[in-house]
């Protein structure tokens, strides 16, 4: 039994002692402890060093609002989580925790010298001091500041754990399983609603966990909680999620919940997810998030051993831990009276009880006095003593002039402070609900809801257990009725008999700002080390809005989002500015309520599951032939097929020559395909594409160009008319989805009168390109007697047939400039057909080729690639495609934009070819171009290289570029400035190979 643990009581399991370490030292706690309660039970109060001044810090709270006790918990090298609130870390056997932000040790930290210079580190210090010289910021100041002002270290290894994600729906989602939340859940479930109840703790009960005196309907609070939970768990329509934080409130009642599945286990079952991210869509939401006790602001209020009154009570009642034996209590509201009594009853000595409020004759004070407690009203703490743990306080009465009178020192080992409870409105605020300032309570409470949401209990300023229970029950009934569309629930008014109520939220009855006591090191924001003086400075320097004061001083901007500091800062600023609190404003709360791991957001979407990996039906064939793959969108495409240790350059050169001399075989299945079908199909095509489609005969195809409505080229592809009312449209691989989406958009919203429908057939067809002079020789014997001669199937002809019995749609098309066919077969037959074609072609020198070769071959012909030679700012004319535009068409998407004068200027960037003077130099794609040599920066740039390759066929490099007024510069010499010197280039036609197309029409 450790010195600070009570012999009995609490919700800990004394039969299960747990060993754990903190900073390498071994301690013992019990099942049911948090790291904070276990350390307190061992008399450990010093847990960390503060962010800016490296001041010793301890445990201030018992919940998620903890600003100080941030620790790193480590399972192994990779499983090491920084910045966990010790108040929320559940103890397990072998837990290994470390303090942060200290060197060389927690008790002696060199960084504390920052405190000696604290006068030099006022608000805005970083902004003011590290401005000059500007260049020093990145190299010197920022790294230095980051090193000294860190908060834990992220592990360097990849996270080995799994993380799950789950969507869920319910009628009523209840956040918080305190008295209001439990009552709400009970009532909603009783009405047949599908309910999800979540709570961030391991135990339900909320404020009841710290209460062993209240009786609810004749039961102890623990019995009532257990009974209610058992009832809820037995209901199949209710899902209870413990250790689950509602961290984000998203539009339309979508709530993000983070469930911690294994962190509390000593030996998590292998393979089990560590966390589960829930995305819950709720018809109705009930926020029962309780209230957060606020600290008092006084000089030296941050020492280890100074904590909130409610927190001490929680440790006492829930964990059976006495956080101190000689206790000073300072309060500005009534709730601390019960805390003092409870501690006294548990064996602590309350050496001094201070009520800050001006009245000295409160009956409650007299009642405490009867217990033998020394207590006074109208007193202040004006200073504290102790380095790594508080050893005493100085108290005094402050007179009208502000001077301290009757000052005396008191020795103690624990100081409890109680600055009133503040509703936890974080989620309500996230939901865009409007907060309302309650003058009486001096807090913001939920006003008008923006979502189908209601708050219940302490989080909307309801004080008292009976009222909270009733409020919860009413909310539960109303939410269930609203969700289920049943009769109004107002009839329901469930009554709870409650006596000896728990210390529920109590408002301040003195001005909140008056509670703050000036003096050195009077901290407002404990995590970011912001003091009253920093706030004063901000106000003196002219900041008027809390949004600006916050950013200047960084108050409320730490990971705790100011749960214990926002309101104190706001009230102080309002008083200094002489304005009403709402006039100074309240900052917006943003998700997450408490930090959520990145891994949780990633969930299962990592590695193979990060994105779908799409493979064509002929993927295995390509693997067999040694393909090197590249990612094109989500697709894996064969890039080249190296043989005998060839590098890419050699393989591509060989593949190019094979296509030009014999024949190549290429998997073109990833091309997007859309069936445009219906009596108005031709009209639809005329409106979508720049081309004229009316005269395209069945069995013929042509190259189509698609613009956006701004007139710029969006996509291209071969389009075949396979029947009078049916087009087989092909798109680029990357454009498949967006072209279909754009077409659907026009079809449904602009031209709903057209009888035409669109269906993606991308994956219906496997597409095999045969390209090269021997293509027909290879294909002809396999197509079951179909006549594919030049006469029967000319260039751009399309015919249906069979290939060794497999149904086939055969295109005679070429993206290489050679005689070419594209064989479309049902996807399931793709692997079989490509193998058959490959086998049949081998004696003709048929060679598999990949996307790299495809790119070189098309560039030799001056064919553009959308997205490589276009960038969303080129018109058809810019890239030499004006010929494709149907001149007599009344309209098409982009036509009006093309008529604008700026789209027709002669100095627009136009696509041209480039030849380097040195045939071996391959220009860099993206390289800029200038028109005179020897320019110095800033140069006059007239264009850039879009495509560039070494051409094995031509024996020299080739490039395509877009250059201002490029077509008028034919034959001119231009320059490509590179780090190694200028490269002279000559402007030429982008068609480098077979400009007459003689090889095509054979």
């Amino acid at each position, binding site marked *: 039994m450790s010195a600070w643990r009570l012999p009995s009581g609490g919700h800990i399991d004394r039969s299960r002692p747990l060993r754990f370490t903190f900073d390498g030292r071994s301690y013992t706690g019990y099942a049911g402890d948090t790291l904070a309660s276990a350390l307190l039970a061992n008399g450990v109060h010093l847990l960390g060093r503060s962010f800016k001044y490296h001041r010793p810090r301890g445990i201030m709270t018992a919940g998620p609002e903890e600003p100080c006790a941030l620790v790193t918990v480590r399972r192994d090298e990779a499983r090491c989580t920084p910045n966990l609130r010790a108040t929320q870390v559940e103890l397990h056997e072998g837990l290994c925790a470390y303090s942060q932000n200290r060197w060389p040790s927690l008790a002696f930290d060199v960084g504390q010298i920052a405190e000696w210079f604290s006068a030099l580190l006022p608000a805005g210090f970083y902004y003011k001091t590290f401005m000059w010289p500007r260049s020093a910021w990145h190299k010197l100041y920022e790294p230095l500041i980051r090193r000294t002002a860190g908060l834990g270290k992220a592990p360097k290894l990849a996270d080995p754990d*799994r993380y*799950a*994600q*789950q*969507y*869920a*729906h319910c009628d009523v989602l209840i956040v918080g399983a305190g008295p209001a939340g439990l009552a709400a859940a009970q009532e909603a479930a009783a009405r047949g609603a*599908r309910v999800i109840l979540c709570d961030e703790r391991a135990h339900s009960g909320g404020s009841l966990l710290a209460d062993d005196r209240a009786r609810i309907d004749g039961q102890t609070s623990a019995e009532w909680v257990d009974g209610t939970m058992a009832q809820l768990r037995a209901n199949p329509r209710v899902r209870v999620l413990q250790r689950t934080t509602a961290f984000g409130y998203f539009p339309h009642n979508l709530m993000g919940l983070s469930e911690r*599945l294994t962190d509390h286990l000593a030996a998590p079952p292998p*393979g*089990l*997810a560590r966390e*589960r991210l829930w*995305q819950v*869509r709720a018809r109705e939401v009930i926020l029962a998030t309780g209230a957060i006790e606020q600290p008092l602001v006084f000089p030296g209020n941050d020492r280890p051993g100074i904590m909130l009154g409610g927190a001490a009570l929680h440790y006492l009642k829930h964990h059976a831990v006495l956080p101190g034996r000689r206790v000073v209590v300072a309060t500005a509201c009534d709730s601390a009276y019960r805390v003092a009594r409870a501690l006294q009853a548990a064996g602590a000595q309350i050496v001094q009880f201070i009520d800050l409020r001006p009245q000295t004759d409160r009956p409650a004070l007299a009642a405490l006095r009867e217990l033998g407690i020394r207590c006074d009203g109208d007193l202040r703490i004006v200073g504290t003593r102790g380095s790594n743990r508080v050893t005493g306080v100085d108290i005094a009465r402050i007179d009208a002039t502000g001077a301290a009178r009757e000052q005396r020192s008191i020795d103690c080992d624990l100081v409890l402070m109680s600055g009133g409870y503040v509703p936890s409105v974080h989620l309500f605020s996230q939901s865009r609900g409007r907060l309302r300032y309650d003058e009486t309570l001096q807090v913001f409470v939920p006003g008008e809801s923006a979502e189908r949401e209601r708050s219940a209990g302490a989080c909307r300023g309801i004080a008292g257990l009976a009222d909270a229970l009733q409020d919860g029950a009413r909310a539960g009934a109303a939410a269930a009725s609203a969700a289920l569309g049943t009769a109004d629930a107002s009839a329901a008014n469930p009554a709870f008999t409650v006596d000896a109520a728990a210390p529920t939220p109590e408002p301040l009855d003195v001005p909140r700002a008056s509670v703050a006591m000036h003096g050195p090191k009077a901290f407002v924001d404990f995590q970011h080390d912001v003091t009253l003086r920093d706030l004063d400075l901000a106000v003196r320097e002219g900041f008027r809005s809390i949004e600006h004061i916050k950013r200047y001083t960084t108050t409320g901007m730490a990971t705790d989002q100011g749960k214990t500091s926002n309101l104190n800062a706001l009230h102080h600023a309002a008083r200094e500015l002489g304005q009403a609190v709402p006039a100074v404003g309240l900052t917006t709360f943003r998700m997450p309520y408490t930090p959520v791991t990145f891994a949780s957001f990633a969930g*299962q*979407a990592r590695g*193979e*599951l990060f*994105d*779908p*990996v*799409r*493979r*064509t*039906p002929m*993927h295995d064939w390509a*693997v067999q032939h040694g393909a090197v*793959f590249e990612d094109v969108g*989500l*697709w*894996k495409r064969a890039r080249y097929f190296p043989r005998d240790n060839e590098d890419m350059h050699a393989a591509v050169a060989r593949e190019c020559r094979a296509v030009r001399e014999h024949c190549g075989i290429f998997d073109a299945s990833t091309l997007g395909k859309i*069936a445009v*079908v*219906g*009596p108005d199909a031709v009209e639809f095509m005329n409106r979508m594409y720049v081309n004229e489609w009316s005269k395209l005969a069945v069995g013929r195809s042509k190259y189509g160009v698609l613009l956006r409505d701004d007139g710029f080229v969006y996509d291209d592809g071969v389009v075949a008319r396979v029947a009078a009312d049916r087009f087989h449209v092909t798109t680029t691989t990357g454009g498949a989805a967006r072209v279909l989406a754009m077409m659907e958009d026009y079809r449904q919203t602009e031209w709903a009168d057209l*009888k*035409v*429908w*669109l*269906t*993606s*057939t*991308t*994956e*219906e*067809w496997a597409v095999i390109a045969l390209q090269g002079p021997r293509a027909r020789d290879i294909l002809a014997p396999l197509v079951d007697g179909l006549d594919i001669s030049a006469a029967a199937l000319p260039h751009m002809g399309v015919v249906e047939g069979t290939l060794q019995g497999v*149904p086939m749609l055969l295109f005679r098309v070429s993206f290489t400039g050679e005689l070419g066919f594209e064989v479309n077969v*049902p*996807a*399931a*037959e793709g692997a079989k057909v490509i193998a058959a074609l490959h086998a049949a072609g081998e004696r003709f020198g048929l060679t598999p080729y990949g996307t790299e070769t495809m790119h070189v071959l098309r560039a030799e012909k001056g064919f553009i690639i959308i997205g490589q030679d276009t960038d969303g700012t080129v018109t058809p004319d810019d890239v030499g495609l004006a010929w494709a535009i149907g001149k007599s068409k009344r309209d098409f998407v982009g036509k009006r934009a093309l008529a604008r004068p700026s789209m027709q200027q002669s100095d627009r960037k136009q696509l041209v070819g480039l030849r380097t003077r040195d045939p071996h130099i391959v220009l860099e794609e993206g390289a800029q171009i200038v028109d005179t040599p020897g320019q110095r920066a800033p140069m006059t740039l007239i264009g850039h290289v879009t495509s560039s390759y070494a051409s094995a066929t031509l024996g020299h490099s080739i490039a395509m570029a877009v250059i201002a007024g490029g077509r008028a510069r034919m034959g001119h010499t231009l320059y490509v400035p590179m780090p190694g010197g200028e490269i002279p280039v000559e402007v030429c036609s982008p068609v480098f190979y077979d400009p007459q197309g003689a090889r095509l029409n054979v």
Partner: protein
Amino acid sequence: MSESNTAPRTPGWLSVANPASRFVLQGELPALAAAASALGFESDVGTNEARDNGQFALLWLGPDERLILAWQEGARQLAPRIANALAGHAHSLVDVTHRQVSRCVRGEGITELLNCGCPQDLDITQFAVDRCSRTLYNKAEIVLWRRGPNEFHVEIWRSYADYFERWLIEAAQDLPVSTL
């Protein structure tokens, strides 16, 4: 490289359920009604409804769009039959037999497992037997058809099937499905 096929062994609750052929039919309501009748259904399906008469399944995909699954009849035979029935009705009938593949997922807990990637409410009270929906499983589009309280038919484009199956199997580590 992800080329090596490392997909875990197919679990008992996951099986292939391919029909002989599939079509996407789009058109105005009379055309859709005529097709339903040609396939032996008394009437067209309602919103998000699927029906199966043993020979054909008819799934509602959108106000003017249906998915036809033919359990035995091949596309070559079926296409002309439907086209005949639709003569005179403007419509689009497109063979998608090979575009997608079908999976049957069946077992206690399968709804939860689907909800790992599908954001729709699949509670039996909201998504009853013979409801269908074109929806998402994470980054893959699927057509989901509830065939029983614990059984779903899934249509998915063929190149996404591997992703879909891997994800289900991965997620099942936390949400075990007991095979029925």
